[in-house]
């Protein structure tokens, strides 16, 4: 069965410091991984998908199949990055999305 693990429930950094939110997964197939973000009082929204290899709001994430990881990184954290971050794995094959397995989430706090 698939599993997504985010080892840090809480992460605190100061503004301008680098930040890395860890995500490890276990999945027998070819994984499709995502990062979601939930700001205070807002709905869950997609931040990144590994297949796009893009940078959103300065965040990047690289899929490392050897280490089964998909860590989220940003070189210089901003206060507005403070939010809950979820790593998720898509269990559907092909181009169908929606059956997601989520990690436990990491609350990121960026201090001024």
């Amino acid at each position, binding site marked *: 069965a698939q599993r997504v693990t985010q080892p840090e429930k809480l992460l605190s950094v100061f503004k301008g410091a680098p930040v890395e939110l860890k995500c490890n997964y276990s999945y027998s197939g070819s994984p499709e991984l995502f990062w979601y973000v939930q700001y205070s009082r807002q*709905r869950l929204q997609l931040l990144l998908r590994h297949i796009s290899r893009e940078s959103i709001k300065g965040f990047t994430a690289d899929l490392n199949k050897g280490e089964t990881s998909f860590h989220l990184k940003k070189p210089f954290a901003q206060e507005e990055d403070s939010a809950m971050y979820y790593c998720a794995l898509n269990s559907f094959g092909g181009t169908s999305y929606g*059956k997601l397995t989520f990690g*436990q989430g990491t609350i990121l706090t960026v201090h001024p």
Partner: protein
Amino acid sequence: SAVISQKPSRDICQRGTSLTIQCQVDSQVTMMFWYRQQPGQSLTLIATANQGSEATYESGFVIDKFPISRPNLTFSTLTVSNMSPEDSSIYLCSVGLVFGPGTRLLVL
């Protein structure tokens, strides 16, 4: 991407009663998904709702407790039946990678 709305946004219910949550999408979609987020926990998939067929439930979730309707390609409902305080959660519907705002349920 799809725009999803849910009703109600929140509710407080008495144990033993049932609540039906509505999910509306602004475009026609084949599959809709229902998730639960218990307090302090992550999101867990309850079921997949296809139009024209019975919903497919994940392990630990049963139709008698969480009946789902999918009458057309833009709408679905999830009912939480015979509620207990353990059902206090946020219930979210999703389409693909897009999530609705959630329904926050408190059972007393």
